[in-house]
């Protein structure tokens, strides 16, 4: 595989984490405009740990996930009781605050004769842990997809479990779920924390893939894209968000056929698709149909 294809595939994997994070909240009935903030928190936290303190990447990734989950809980506590669009707006405001805080963040240390660390709007250069360990692009690709595979297996298992059914019941009708004894608030907070950790994991991998991050990476555009990925792919299965990322990054950006017109094609495609499939390509009905076919008892 040439370098370009590896790069495109890696990006597809990285943004899938973010799309899955948006998807997790969507099936629990919450539309967040702010998952990019946790992607950013993970990128910055992981980058600082490996580049400045020399922490090994696996440990840094765990710490980044913990900080993503913590940030998500802090934002979730005052906002998760808000309904629908109010929650979307509040998460949007929170994410923009996070982006501006990244712009104000100056934390540089001299490492090996060069200044390393977040330098406000100038960005954060030299997140070179992966590069310095001699990890090949193909190996990194394998790491990204290995982690993604583990997460997908977890998603599939959870969605078939009691917990998964409970989550979808909250998404469909929180009052009804609460009346059946589901602790809606606690469960939503847990979902927000898991989604934050998931986005942060994507962020830390993104930072170490690019070696350079800047606050602009984590703006509203990224957040709305991740929502769009989850929605066009479909809300019926965790493979939906992956399909969404694949359509945009793989088909449109990767093939370079629509260069210069990519957004016009993608935009039109998404809008028309949503006319016919308002819950995405792989929505609940399609997934149910596939299940019924594939696991039919003889």
């Amino acid at each position, binding site marked *: 595989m040439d370098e370009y294809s590896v790069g495109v595939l890696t990006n597809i994997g990285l943004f899938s984490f973010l799309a899955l994070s948006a998807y997790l909240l969507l099936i629990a009935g919450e539309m967040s405009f702010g998952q990019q903030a946790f992607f950013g928190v993970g990128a910055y936290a992981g980058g600082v740990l490996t580049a400045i303190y020399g922490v090994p990447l696996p440990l840094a990734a765990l710490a980044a996930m913990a900080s993503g989950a913590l940030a998500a809980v802090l934002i979730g506590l005052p906002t998760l009781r808000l309904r629908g669009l109010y929650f979307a707006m509040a998460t949007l405001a929170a994410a923009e605050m996070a982006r501006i805080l990244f712009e104000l963040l100056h934390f540089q240390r001299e490492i090996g004769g060069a200044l390393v660390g977040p330098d406000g709007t100038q960005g954060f250069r030299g997140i070179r842990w992966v590069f310095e360990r001699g990890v090949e692009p193909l190996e990194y690709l394998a790491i990204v997809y290995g982690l993604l595979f583990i997460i997908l297996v977890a998603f599939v298992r959870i969605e078939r479990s009691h917990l998964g059914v409970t989550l979808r019941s909250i998404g469909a009708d929180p009052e009804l779920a609460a009346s059946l004894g589901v602790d809606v608030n606690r469960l939503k907070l847990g979902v927000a924390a898991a989604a934050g950790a998931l986005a942060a994991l994507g962020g830390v991998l993104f930072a170490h893939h690019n070696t350079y991050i800047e606050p602009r990476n984590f703006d509203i555009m990224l957040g709305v894209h991740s929502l*769009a990925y989850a929605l066009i792919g479909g809300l019926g299965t965790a493979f939906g968000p992956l399909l969404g990322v694949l359509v945009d990054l793989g088909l449109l950006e990767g093939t370079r056929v629509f260069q210069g017109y990519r957004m016009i094609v993608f935009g*039109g495609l998404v809008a028309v698709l949503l006319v016919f499939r308002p819950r995405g390509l792989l929505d609940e009905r399609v997934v149910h149909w596939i299940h019924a076919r594939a696991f039919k008892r003889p």
Partner: protein
Amino acid sequence: MLADLVQNTLDGLTAGAAYALLAVGFTLIFGVLRRVNLSYGAAILFGVYFATWTSLHFQADLLVLALLTIAATVLAGAYVERLCFAPHYPSRGSPRAGASSGSIAAMVASFALWMQFEEAAILALPQHLYAFPPLHTGEPLRFGQFFLRVESLYLLLAAVAVCALLYTILYRTRFGLAVRAVVDVPVAAQLAGINLSSVFVRIFALASAIGGLAGFLIAASHEQVTPMLGMWSTVKGMLAMMLGGLGSLPGAVAGGLVLGLVEAHSQWYFGPQMRDLIAYLLIFVLLALRPAWMTRWTSTRSAS
């Protein structure tokens, strides 16, 4: 000290008038449809870029440019309405469900068209910055040591005129009655023979026209346009709407002015990054706390 305070307040009102106009259009759609139109700013960008393109190629009067901007914005708005909102209108019952799949689909679809407008604008006029004919040439108004740009008076006047016009339409016409009925009790309005979709279409056209007017006045008072105008209009209009309590027209005007004032003062004392941070923090806290006056304004009855 005091002189700075007064001058900043004047500057804040100028910016606030623009925000108020943007917020009125945004709020009209949100208040009636209960949907967020993310491509509101992008449609304005389309209108303003169309006028800019015209002014680059033809000799055009300022009034002609204003009408062209409004017409192109309404056209772009109609495209958004047909493709993103019309397919997701509720067939029966209430259109005001929370994060129902219809409202998510409409919002994401409108975001998709935002991408289209932005790329189309950049393809048509690829430079980062274009000059736009000025609204007013000459000295700003002076009051002793303070000055106020004449453009801001136009913006404030336009905001007042648009509000008066909307008030007349909503409270003095049959169409306004239909709109208020749809906002109050959608099901009853449908039973009384009001066509929901036709009300929505006309509200969308009205909001786009207001957005086009706002876009023209903003471009002509800044005397330049960049592709950032689309995102800027959507974000500022949305922020002002949120400050005003989501769905109230007087609230949108107040929210726009408050946003302008808060921005002007915090920029003066803390710099541009803190200005944005403070604006978002204010909105986050207001949304999280939901004080009584916000809930009152967002109650259905005062939504128009």
